[in-house]
């Protein structure tokens, strides 16, 4: 290992590049800081700079059944949608490794990734018609969950198949020559290899679904709101600091979740590296 070749190759050009990167990062942080700042105002409307300092609006949001119901609905939809998308995305990625023809692999892969580009509104409209036709689906969350799962599935697929592509391709043939049946191969060889990637896919899928609003606009049963929908409505009405307080809380939750996940996966890789080092020195 030597000094980073890229750093050396680009030389003093790093400075302007770094400058632009820092300015770009402001695009992320400034709006967020404004949201957080306005949430502790004492006034009954959003104002910047905030006036005074109080946690009134936080307790207000946490005690408001409208916000808390929306939060619970979102949790339910996200959890169910994540499970479905992880199962489907993983199955798709596994199926891809079992295709022999290169052309077929290419097409399946494209078909699984294209949905990332399809506008959510298209899913929404399609499922909306189903909603109108099938009365039984009219006032529950089933269609919404299904739609959200479809939206998140490509991300799971991408992450899991990148995990599978790093694996030794000889393992599976080796196992089958040793007489392992396919359920055994999936259970003992494929799944342990991609467990980490599945978890990453699940976290990503949860985040995507939790933040998604278009499908809720179309598919949420009358009177039921997901959290993003509640936020959207709130931001189109009188701007109450409830909105920014709720936004801050949700962001905190997201940061905690992602932080815990990256801490966990860092531990995992560190442990794997230690094990690899021990194996080479032994």
């Amino acid at each position, binding site marked *: *290992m*030597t*000094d980073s*070749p890229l750093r*050396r190759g680009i030389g003093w050009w790093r400075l302007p590049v770094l400058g632009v990167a820092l300015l770009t990062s402001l695009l992320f942080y400034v709006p967020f800081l404004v949201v957080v700042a306005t949430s502790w105002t004492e006034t009954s409307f959003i104002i910047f700079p905030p006036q005074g300092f109080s946690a009134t609006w936080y307790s207000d949001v946490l005690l408001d059944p409208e916000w808390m119901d929306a939060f619970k609905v979102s949790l339910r939809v996200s959890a169910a949608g994540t499970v479905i998308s992880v199962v489907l995305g993983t199955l798709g990625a596994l199926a891809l490794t079992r295709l022999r023809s290169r052309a077929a692999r290419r097409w399946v892969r494209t078909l699984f990734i294209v949905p990332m580009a399809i506008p959510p509104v298209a899913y929404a409209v399609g499922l909306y018609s189903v909603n109108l036709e099938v009365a039984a689906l009219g006032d529950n969350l089933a269609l919404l969950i299904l739609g959200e799962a479809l939206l998140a599935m490509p991300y799971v697929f991408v992450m899991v198949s990148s995990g599978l592509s790093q694996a030794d391709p000889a393992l599976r043939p080796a196992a089958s020559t040793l007489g392992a049946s396919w359920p055994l191969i999936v259970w003992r060889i494929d799944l342990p290899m991609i467990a980490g990637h599945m978890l990453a896919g699940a976290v990503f899928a949860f985040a995507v679904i939790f933040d998604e609003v278009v499908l809720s606009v179309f598919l949420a049963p009358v009177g039921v709101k997901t959290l993003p929908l509640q936020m959207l409505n709130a931001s189109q009405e009188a701007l109450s600091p409830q909105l920014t307080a709720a936004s801050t809380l949700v962001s905190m939750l997201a940061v905690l979740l992602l932080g815990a996940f990256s801490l966990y996966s860092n531990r995992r890789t560190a442990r794997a590296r230690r094990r690899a080092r021990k194996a080479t020195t032994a």
Partner: protein
Amino acid sequence: MTIALSIQDVHVTLGHNEVLKGVSLDAAPGEFVTLLGASGSGKTTLLNVIAGLQHVHRGHVLFDGQSVERRPPRKRKVGVVFQSYALFPRMSVGENVAFPLRAAGRPKAERRRIAQEMLDLVDLGGMADRTTDSLSGGQQQRVALARALAANPGILLLDEPMAALDKQLRERMQVEIKRIQQRVGITTLSVTHDQAEAMTMSDRVAIMHHGRLIQVDTPEQLYRRPVNEYVASFLGEANLFPADGQGPLGSGMTDRATGTAVIRPEDLVVLDPRQGADRWHVRGVVSLLSFQGSRFRLELATPGGQTVVCSLPPHTDVSLLLPGSEATLGCAEPRHVHIIDTTEAGRLVELAA
């Protein structure tokens, strides 16, 4: 514009790992020196130090007597053939070779002329407009060499130059590179873990082990007079026996040992069991006999558990040496036995040298 290279007590630490622990090496102008060592011995790090790709924590690197540790790589005028060749994709062969000249801001006509000269030098005269991925491995290596020499560098560095070639091509390219190096007359430092390659190409070979240079000498001296057991068994095959100042000791006298005798397989002969008594010999059971074209290879398992390797001329009568039979081996020529002094005094002499 070839230069004299001098490396003086260079230390490099990466993380908690001291990769180079005080390495000193000199190369005269036009000399071909090979760094030979197992992976992890620090040889590639030393090459990077010379190229300027690795920061030196202590010690000096001198080009023609001038210290260059603070000179950035692009100002050192070194030519490097990288292990993967690192040819630039989406550039033609000619553009690749002319790259160092382009970087130096030379005019286009001159770039074209020198690139053509360099391609002629490596026998790729008509290939200037080809793409690099249409070339064979051997041709890619020649392009990498032509590029390394294009800007008339003071020193040529080869990082495992044969690693990406198959065995037959390897031997051809070793001779070829050596020929070009001699024609250009450039000081060259090569890195390899292949001892045959080191012996074929180099004027001198430097054996590296755990971040230190163990011995720097001509291939012949290294083979005949290794300074320690590591060098003896790293370069060629060696049978090691306890010895005193005169020669190897027979079984039962090993407590008198003051050194180690290095006996090469070709210096062992098969003795008639009856004549072995008055001179040094080793007895054992034949565990392997194989014909390898120019030699027979015989392996003997001694009662002490040692495996002794012996190389016999191809016309030897081996009917009595089939696996399982008893055999006695002795020295063909006691003068050819090299003795490594392992006593404290001997170690000190070695250190002083």
